[in-house]
């Protein structure tokens, strides 16, 4: 039987799409890289996912798992063809308020989980900007972060267990409610592996008790330096706010022009801070942050005490990406991390890169953890401009690595940054990662060509009798 016939026999005809327009819809994620799938399937149980994996292996075609397709690194773009497995039919949410956990289907939308958990006074900590659209499965694949991961960590810190379909269609449940399951922590390895090791169908997540109180501060500064220094001072004072978000002048202007929320458009930088906890704690912490900001020449400090006021302050930050449409039809959003102490010099470098290529760049980022999101607004229909934006992107990454940073903070490597992995890792590091991939996926069906650059498996020390080339390990 053909691939499609095999899939339809298991999933039913309506859950296997093959029409060109349907395939086109699922041919890319939110990145700019498009692939061409053979078909798109919507399994509604782990057993169906396991069947799809077996069928794919039998036909020797790749599988690309996809949640909502909000990924920015082409991790869910089917660039090698094959089957796109959309997880959105996996919709279970089973909350265990006593253990503060929930089993969640991979297709559940991040915000829907938190909404449902709020009935029990609980929430799911990872809150990527796309949380009203992105799925838990996608969060797991990319180890997603968000503003609030400064104090609570990324997705990996909140995944206690998972049900995953491995090579051969084997269904395995890893982890559980009890802490520290003995043996190698395979689930920790699968988080952030971008669908290259297997397909996660259900996730056991940790839920946190909702914060009794919150204070949100919006501070405007005469320079990026003074804003960045305030961030360092806050940490030095022993505080780890729930969020520390920074917007540069270009971003504030763009947002304000669209939102009319009264943002200070003449500020060189706007810092948004949020502290959560007991009322006594947030009141004194907010005051401390305000004092530090004023000491660092902040021109104004706005502290929200009501939910409406807080929502208004956050609206600017959350509208950042949407408001870019005023500048150009498309944008290219970068994601890189630098040590917090190198923020100011990195920002200067970013502006220089934009200027050199005559590009429109705005910055909004997680200042607390040094996670930069330089955004280049442009018209993607112009092939020359595309090339320039791509070149500038590589320079941005090179700059971040040069100051001791990392390739990606929360969007992943996917295909977009795959070939930059060599700038970050030695041949032996990549070889180790490639071996790991082979152990999980010997047939190479799970999202091939992603994460690891071609030729990563360039050393073979596997046989113990083999002599190691002299000095090669250094």
């Amino acid at each position, binding site marked *: 039987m053909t691939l499609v016939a095999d899939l339809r026999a298991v999933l039913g005809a309506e859950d296997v799409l093959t029409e060109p327009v349907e395939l086109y819809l699922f041919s890319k994620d939110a990145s700019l890289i498009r692939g061409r799938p053979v078909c798109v399937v919507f399994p509604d149980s782990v057993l169906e996912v396991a069947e799809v994996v077996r069928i794919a292996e039998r036909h020797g075609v790749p599988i690309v798992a996809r949640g909502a397709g909000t990924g920015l690194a082409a991790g869910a773009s089917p660039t090698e063809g094959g089957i796109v497995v959309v997880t959105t039919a996996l919709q279970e949410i089973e909350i265990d308020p006593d253990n503060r956990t929930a089993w969640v289907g991979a297709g559940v939308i991040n915000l829907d989980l938190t909404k449902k958990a709020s009935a029990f006074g609980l929430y799911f900590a990872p809150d990527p900007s796309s949380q009203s659209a992105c799925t838990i499965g996608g969060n797991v694949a990319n180890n997603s972060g968000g503003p609030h991961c400064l104090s609570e960590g990324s997705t990996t810190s909140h995944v206690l267990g998972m049900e995953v379909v491995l090579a051969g269609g084997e269904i395995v449940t890893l982890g559980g409610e009890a802490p520290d399951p003995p043996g190698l922590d395979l689930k920790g390895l699968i988080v952030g592996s971008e669908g290259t090791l297997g397909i996660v169908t259900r996730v056991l997540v940790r839920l946190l008790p909702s914060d009794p109180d919150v204070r949100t501060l919006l501070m405007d500064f005469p320079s990026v330096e003074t804003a960045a220094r305030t961030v360092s001072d806050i940490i030095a004072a022993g505080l780890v706010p729930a969020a520390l978000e920074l917007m540069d002048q270009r971003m504030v202007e763009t947002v304000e022009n669209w939102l009319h929320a009264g943002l200070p458009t003449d500020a060189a930088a706007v810092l948004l801070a949020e502290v959560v906890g007991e009322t006594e704690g947030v009141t004194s912490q907010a005051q401390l942050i305000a004092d530090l900001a004023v000491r660092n020449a902040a021109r104004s400090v706005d502290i929200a005490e009501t939910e409406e006021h807080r929502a208004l302050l956050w609206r600017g930050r959350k509208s950042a990406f949407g408001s870019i449409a005023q500048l150009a039809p498309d944008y290219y959003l970068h994601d890189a*991390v630098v040590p917090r102490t190198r923020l100011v010099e990195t920002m200067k470098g970013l502006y220089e890169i934009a200027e050199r290529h005559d590009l429109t760049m705005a910055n909004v980022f997680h200042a607390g953890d040094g996670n930069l999101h330089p955004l280049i607004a442009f018209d993607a229909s112009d092939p020359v401009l595309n090339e320039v934006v791509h070149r500038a992107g590589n320079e941005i990454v090179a700059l971040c690595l040069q100051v001791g940073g990392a390739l990606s903070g929360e969007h992943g490597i996917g295909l977009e940054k795959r070939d930059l992995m060599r700038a970050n890792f030695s041949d032996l590091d990549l070889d180790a990662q490639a071996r790991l991939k082979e152990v999980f996926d010997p047939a190479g069906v799970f999202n091939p060509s992603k994460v690891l650059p071609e030729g990563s498996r360039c050393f073979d020390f596997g046989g113990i009798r083999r002599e190691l080339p002299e000095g090669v390990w*250094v």
Partner: protein
Amino acid sequence: MTYPRHIAWLEVEIEGGPESGLSIAPKTTKDFAAALRYATEHGLVVQVWGGGTHSGYGSPPQPDLVMSMERMSQIEVWEPDDLTIVVGAGAPIAAVEAELSQRNQSLVMSERPGPGTIGGAIAAGTSPLRRARLYGVRERVLEVTMITGDGRLIRSGGRVVKNVTGYDLHRLAVGAFGALGVIVSVCVKLWPTPPAAATVVIDDLEMADVIARPLAVLDDNGQKKVYIWGTEREVESLMSRLNGDATPDLDWPEDPEGTWRWSLRVPPALTGAAVSRLPGKWRYLAIHGVGDVRAASATPLGAEDLRSWAESVGGHLVVTKGIPDVFDPWGSLLPPGLDIQRRLIAEFDPRRVINPGRLPGGL
């Protein structure tokens, strides 16, 4: 057996260390690589030695070669403003904490580390008492450099607090007891210590519910304590809300000590139930909200029943110290994905020289 000169010259005496053919303290990653290559070539059993505080986990094999981490204990880079430190895996937690406290920062790896090292806490995957609020040791590890069983130097992760770059081998190394390689250097995410803290003794665990997220709620052999920290005003007001005997600092208990030591791991809501099931004379320290109960006893009597119960609720009873070959250290449940675990280890330690058989499932 006689060892070649390039290994033998690293010989040291390890106080309280295991008996072996040779104990060495490599000085550089090159020394480690050379020794591990030699071990792989000759099929030697290697045990890695930090502070010896986790030497009771699993069934430690009789080693031919013991590698002490004592010479890999330097602080390489500490960036207080970045909340990161890069440090040799053999560095004692207590010594590093003493350094970090000068700038009010902490590793948050262990409150009572004894002679324990950073590498040891990571390899054993143990966690601090503050884990309900600040998470386990796994969440502190940002980057790991290790030497594989066959002598390759590999690095995973990065020196920034947030990172999604390739497979997280550094997280896989947590709790792996060296199955992938000897951890030689790590980058740890630090945590700032707020200005004020307090320990409040309460009569009833439910009294702790007046605070959404305390630093820890412990049951120390029946004495219940809530730990809080924050700004001075915050701590003062929380103390009065808790309404118990308060001391103005963090008074951490020691893990219970005995011939046998246990780690009972159950779903968080069953922490109290786990405590009530401990055999009469066992001493214990329970972390509420986590399901982490540390216990000690003179004999393993009653442990079989306790283990059956723990496993029936999805948990485990793990021996962390005992008399070898008397009681199965990990339990009867084989870890899921055992075949993948075995094949993974084979890619890093093909001849299985580092701590062979120490992980569950005979790995």
